[in-house]
């Protein structure tokens, strides 16, 4: 695969690792913010290849993991309304809410369809004019523009039975919130690659300027991740903190302006409820007034019972980087991929699922 295979070259990876080993002299802590980076790091065994003095932590960049349980309960409540088809990305279907999951309500008779694309949900609406199609909008700034585009498409094509439950969240605000919580000390952050393809690198400048933490925007192949780590090590050793784009073929400093414009036309910034963290101001997206007719929350009567987390689940502190899955009493014993208790085990890129499937990253 072009633009992918070349960045899996073991020889190039080896050379980068050698340079990282050579240059890295101090004990440092790096956070890979994005779930996709977590999976890639584990899949390729990068943790065990880096020098011992570099500690890697996983952050809350997993849209499934951070979807508030109350929001998931809303989606489940919507699925039970007559005439509703729920369209969802596959990732959400098995996540346990307070009492059920989309997969479970599907087995009970609700119409829940897995879609690959928000556009497919629009087509579903077009093909089922007598139903209401509600698309569960999760994802960060990579996905939000696609959902915005789907709403504009529905508007243009006169489709009036397409709705979205906007659960989108924003990366730079949560990164600031995590840093402000002061629970973890970081020297560098591997910034999300595809979120940055949309938003560019400028939004992370505050991390380098105000918090003196090195930033590297990285891609997802092993060589890409190592380029990111290499940049962070260099910055930290020189004590010169900036936001470097290591993923140059995919990210420009200004991001993707047309995509940003589209996103801003349809959505406005709002507070958001982050599972395990709580309400964070100005960290989410909701539909603008002009597009309220596409808003599931505004158009449907959603009745939910009080939400509650499962006892013993520490996904919250795992998402904040304070604990690892190995610290959780439920991990592997009660909480497994077959019977997940919390979102970090269900999501294919959640820390717990990653540890379970790939080991602790050190071959164990």
């Amino acid at each position, binding site marked *: 695969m072009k633009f992918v295979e070349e960045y899996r070259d073991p020889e190039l990876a080896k050379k980068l690792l050698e340079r990282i080993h050579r240059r890295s002299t101090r004990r440092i802590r790096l956070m890979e913010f994005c779930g996709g980076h977590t999976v890639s790091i584990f899949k390729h065994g990068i943790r065990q290849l880096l020098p011992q003095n570099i500690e890697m932590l996983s952050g809350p960049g997993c849209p499934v993991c951070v979807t508030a349980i109350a929001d998931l309960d809303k989606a489940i409540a919507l699925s039970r309304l007559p005439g509703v088809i729920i369209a969802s990305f596959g990732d959400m279907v098995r996540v346990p809410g307070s009492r059920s999951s989309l997969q479970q309500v599907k087995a009970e008779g609700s119409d829940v369809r897995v879609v690959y694309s928000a556009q497919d949900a629009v087509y579903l609406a077009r093909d089922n004019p007598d139903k209401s199609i509600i698309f569960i909008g999760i*994802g960060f700034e990579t996905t939000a523009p696609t959902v915005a585009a789907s709403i504009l498409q529905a508007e243009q094509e006169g489709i009036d039975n397409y709705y979205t439950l906007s659960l989108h969240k924003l990366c730079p605000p949560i990164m600031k919130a995590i840093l402000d919580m002061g629970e973890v000390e970081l020297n560098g952050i591997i910034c999300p690659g595809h979120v940055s393809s949309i938003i560019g690198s400028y939004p992370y400048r505050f991390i380098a300027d105000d918090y003196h933490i090195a930033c590297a925007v990285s891609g997802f192949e092993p060589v890409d991740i190592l380029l990111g780590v290499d940049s962070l090590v260099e910055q930290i050793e020189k004590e010169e903190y900036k936001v470097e784009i290591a993923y140059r073929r995919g990210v420009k400093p200004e991001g993707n302006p047309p995509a940003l414009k589209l996103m801003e036309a349809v959505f406005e910034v709002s507070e958001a409820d982050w599972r395990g963290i709580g309400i964070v101001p100005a960290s989410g997206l909701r539909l603008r007034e002009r597009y309220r007719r596409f808003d599931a929350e505004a158009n449907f009567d959603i009745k939910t019972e009080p939400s509650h987390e499962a006892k013993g689940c520490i996904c919250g502190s795992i998402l904040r980087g304070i604990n690892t899955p190995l610290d959780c009493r439920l991990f592997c014993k009660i909480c497994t991929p077959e019977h997940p208790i919390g979102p970090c085990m269900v999501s294919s890129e959640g820390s717990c699922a990653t540890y379970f499937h790939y080991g602790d990253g050190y071959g164990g």
Partner: protein
Amino acid sequence: MEDRILLAHGSGGKLMHDLIARSFVSTLGNPILNKLDDSAVFELEEHGQLAFTTDSYVISPIFFPGGDIGKLAVCGTVNDLAMSGATPLYLSLSLIIEEGLLIADLERIVDSIKQATSEARVKIVTGDTKVVNRGSADKLFITTSGVGVVPPGIDISGANARPGDKVIISGTIGDHGIAIVSQREGLKFKVPVASDCAPLNRLVAEMVKTSANIHCLRDPTRGGLATTLNEFARQSKVSIVIEEANIPAKKSVLGACELLGFDPLYLANEGKLAAVVAPEDADKVLTKMKQNQYGSEAAIIGEVAAEHPGRVIMKTRLGASRIVDILVGELLPRIC
């Protein structure tokens, strides 16, 4: 002549008898089946232990690139027999048909069954037909049971893997899985990949003739190669270490996996086998496999070790190791 299956076709009356005669016996007929007795009665000329297996097939869509539910139903059961080292002989064929299925589609599937049984050199000797109300079945469900004979001296089992053994895969992984997923409503992508559905009994026969030290055989169907290797590791209480770079896969299958977020190790294969072979025979078994059309891309992908029993470990291209777990849940397309 009706062009669709009606409930009456399953009621035991004239319509059903006509259907059986016209659509099944005329195509699949053989001396045993033609008797249409309640049981198929036959003698076994071969000596050895009996192997007996059963499977149900509910795949949707029933027609897919590279095959259909009929071909799958024959090959799946033939392969299960072959994986024990048995020579497959006779199959039963049970159909549960949804009211409204086009008779032309049914006959197409029966033709497909005929072709598959001819290639595998097995016979359908008994069968059953039921028709259920529209909505009570998804077009067509098929159950096949099969008997075969395991020649004396052959002992192939998932529990026989020993440290030092080599692990061989007979060809590219994930073809069937991706071919089916690409037909799934709503995913809307096209792949130039067909299901690899095929009968593997002749391939197995050649392998067994070449070496008396084939310890394990299994076809990695649902759950993929990862699940099969984990089963071997657990049953034999060993670990299996595989090399990522050695696992054969088609470029377009890998591309589709990237697109949807699938790991090809978990995709179903319907015309491939995983073999665990004593190290001294691995090369000659591999050479023999490559001479068969269903083994032309066979490769040694790893070996059996004693440490970490029950685990499957993969050495990545970068030289690091990671665990390969069994499949959990369903493979669903993901955004993350």
